[in-house]
């Protein structure tokens, strides 16, 4: 059997080997308010190369013809360094995106999500390697 869940949502989780870290927001209900979905107070004593994966707002078993629009924002040390819109309306894949960036050591990293309505839930994931 697998061990009981050891990772925390929205926080930094170190890899066993110490070569990097990861973070999951978990399911976050869509909101028109700007919601912090991942909050990392200190990214550690080494610079990191991170990749953010975002799936947009999802209704389980839903219909893409209805569509939904979400905005995701990457804030590093209080400054917005990247933001993008993801529209899941049925105009062809993909309906997710990845963004990669370097972040300096000892940074505060916050991922915010804002939706145009309150339909569905978001998930965001970060995988990171120390450089």
């Amino acid at each position, binding site marked *: *059997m*697998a*061990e*009981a*869940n*050891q*990772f925390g*949502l929205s926080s930094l*989780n170190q*890899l*066993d*080997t*110490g*070569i*990097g870290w*990861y973070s*999951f927001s*978990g*399911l976050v209900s869509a909101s028109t308010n700007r919601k912090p979905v991942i909050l990392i107070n200190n990214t550690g004593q080494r610079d990191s190369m991170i*990749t953010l*994966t975002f*799936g*947009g707002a*999802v*209704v*389980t*078993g*839903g*219909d*893409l013809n209805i569509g939904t629009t979400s905005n995701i924002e990457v804030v590093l040390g209080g400054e917005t360094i990247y933001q993008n819109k993801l529209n*899941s309306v*049925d105009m*062809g*894949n*993909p*309906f*997710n*995106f*990845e963004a990669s960036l370097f972040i300096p050591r000892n940074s505060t990293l916050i991922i915010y999500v804002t939706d145009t309505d309150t339909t569905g*839930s978001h*998930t965001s*994931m970060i*995988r990171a390697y120390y450089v």
Partner: protein
Amino acid sequence: MPEIIVTPQSLVQTTNGKRFYAYSGQIGVDNTQQWQMIDVDNIGERDILMKLEMGSAETTTVDFTIRVLINSVVVYIDTINNAGEQSMAGYNELKFICPANASLAIEVISNSTSSRTLTIMAHGKYLSID
């Protein structure tokens, strides 16, 4: 040589022990339940980076909702379809880290009452120091 058994319930290690793979095989998916495409009770004693691709040969446009559960926690959810010329091949390969000794499940549900055949191919590497 012993036969290598590839099932949706386990990660098969490559001979050098650095990588792994898992295939769901063909599974009929409808809107009655979450269909488990890959379901590994324990991924093993090392952290992994997993990459997966979903595919369908269906000619009718169907929306599928895929979700990733680690230790029964939903860490990723997304909707994908096989519309028109785009096909699922246009979807970004999904990549994520899964911690050691965790359970891992990939589940799919469709918005169609009819059963639609899906496949998932997954592979990845163990996150060691080298």
